[in-house]
């Protein structure tokens, strides 16, 4: 087990390096540099800044150095000091700014994952046990509807139905601007965005659980269990579920990029003060250091989730460790 974990960690190292490098490359492709952001080209005449001054400014920031040197500096700053530059808008360190909004995004993502995992897998199990019944067909059909509706369309419809037509949920925000604040009220604000994101991911879990359980139900060991006269309950709980629902763990890791990507739009629509909303704002403000921080943190989160999923899976299923 320890050997497996070490091997997985070693494979993750070049991937992490790739993520960091790709982030650097993207920031290199972006037109303009930090000096252009400080002194926008359109305002140079008005401000009376000449080329020599700009050049000195570039030198003081090290922007005149060759790409390779800047890449080395970027790696050193990131790895040794956790420095990703400063937000163009607030002047705060980009990483610190990210850390401030991370709890809101984690809260939304975790509730979303739990909801889609529990509900999706349960529906998948029901669907597999009652294969080819009317219920199975209906559940499959609704899964297709969730897969096929883009999150923002779904969000608009949910907002229209459950916030405007029936005033059941607040239209946005994480907590009331003034007035009482407690866990129940927080959950009330969380419900609609989490449900919208959760239903997006639900279909995947459901179809996966269904296919996986059906495969197990056709396997020899299930036939053996039935042949030796075990009650159906034990066949399902003791034999079929244990083997077929383990792979669902890996799907949680794989579904994270979709949830983070989806949260960009959902957080913007529901005014949820998380990474997605900050990311969208940074994108529209051309706030380059923030965009870089967002890409780096988002993809590192996915990397960690995949690593955790792999290790959990190997812990639960010994066959994986001997690959």
């Amino acid at each position, binding site marked *: 087990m320890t050997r497996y974990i070490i091997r997985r960690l070693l494979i993750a190292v070049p991937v992490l390096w*790739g993520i960091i490098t790709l982030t650097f490359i993207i920031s290199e492709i972006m037109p303009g540099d930090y000096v252009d952001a400080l002194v926008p080209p359109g305002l140079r005449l008005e401000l009376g800044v000449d080329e020599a001054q700009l050049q000195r400014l570039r030198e003081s920031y090290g922007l005149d150095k060759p790409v390779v040197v800047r890449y080395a500096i970027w790696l050193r700053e990131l790895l040794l000091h956790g420095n990703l530059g400063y937000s163009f808008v607030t002047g705060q360190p980009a990483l610190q700014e990210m850390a401030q909004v991370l709890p809101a995004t984690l809260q939304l993502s975790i509730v979303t994952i739990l909801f889609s995992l529990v509900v999706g897998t349960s529906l998948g199990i029901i669907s597999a046990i009652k294969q080819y019944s009317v219920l199975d067909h209906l559940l499959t059909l609704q899964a*297709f509807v969730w897969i*096929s*509706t883009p*999150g923002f369309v779904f969000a608009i419809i949910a907002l229209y139905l459950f916030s*405007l037509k029936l005033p059941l949920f607040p239209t946005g925000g994480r907590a009331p601007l003034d007035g009482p604040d407690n866990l129940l009220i927080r959950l009330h604000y969380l419900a609609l965005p989490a449900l919208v994101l959760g239903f997006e991911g639900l279909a995947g879990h459901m179809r996966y659980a269904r296919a996986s359980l059906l495969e197990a139900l056709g396997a020899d060991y299930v036939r053996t269990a039935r042949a030796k006269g075990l009650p159906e309950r034990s066949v399902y709980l003791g034999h079929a579920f244990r083997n077929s629902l383990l792979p669902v763990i890996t799907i949680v890791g794989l579904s994270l990029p979709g949830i983070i990507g*989806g949260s960009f739009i959902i957080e*913007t629509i529901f005014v949820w003060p998380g990474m997605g909303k900050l990311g969208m704002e940074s994108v529209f403000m051309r706030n380059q250091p923030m*965009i870089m921080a967002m890409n780096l943190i988002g*993809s590192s989160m996915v990397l960690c989730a995949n690593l955790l999923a792999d290790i959990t899976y190997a812990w639960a299923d010994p066959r994986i460790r001997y690959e």
Partner: protein
Amino acid sequence: MVDSTATPADGAHEARQPVSSQISPDTWQALPKAENRFLRRFRRHRLAVLGLAALSLFAFVAILAPLVTFYDPNGIDLTVMRQAPSPAHVLGTDPLGRDVWTRLAYGTRVSLAVGLVAVSIYITIGVVLGGLAGYFGGRVDMVLSRFTDVMMCFPSFMLIVTVAVILPPNIFNVMVIIGIFGWTGIMRHVRAQFLSLREREFVLAARCVGVSNGRIVFRHILPNAIAPVVVAATMGLAGAIMTESALSFLGLGVQPPMSSWGSMLQDAMSLPILQTMPWLWLPSAIAIAVTTLSVNFIGDALRDALDPHTSSD
């Protein structure tokens, strides 16, 4: 045929199609049969047939957009602002007095075109990279697979938004951006197929008689690896259409006055419009959902029909 569990139905099946050892005439007869089986299996999915009909209708509207309407999609008419659906304007008019049905028809053009081109781009990238990694293996595979791992860690929508900001927003850049970030799934499929197919006897036989690498790849391996790609491409079309609408919804996709389903939704994104003028957002929302639903149904039926492993006929 020592399997004692063979049912009478199996026996009847074999009697109808005797397993013959000689190949020549049977192979030719098997071809049309295979096609029939494909059609038969596809038709069994009624929802997919329905989806195909819906998609054809959308394609028809997209191609013939100028013929299905009397109005100019960008023709501003301030005398008929924000009108509810009426015989003159079947889906009403928007805040600039433009006919919603006309804009929807032209938007269909944009949305379908972006989806098709984007998917073609990423299928090409995915097949080439996956083929190289799977066929050559070793170091090539190592580098390409790690690169794919890196790409898969980035939430693709986040990357797409980032790059959409760098490039000037127009329809061609939207196609390219969606295309260059969607290939990872296809790459993995194709790589896995190539890895297993290159070890098979018919590839070994081809190599033994001195067939070149290129010919082995294109004549022997690729045709056998293409079925999952077709399915993934179909599902990918739905994804690309959804991504385009999301980008346009955020204002990073097609630019006004051009319309796409997503940009029409963006125009309608305000609480008063949501509440009182459903004709401004409902048609495009329905168009997106129906199209992606149809495409997904078709993809699901294709998976069933093309998969040689599902034995039920």
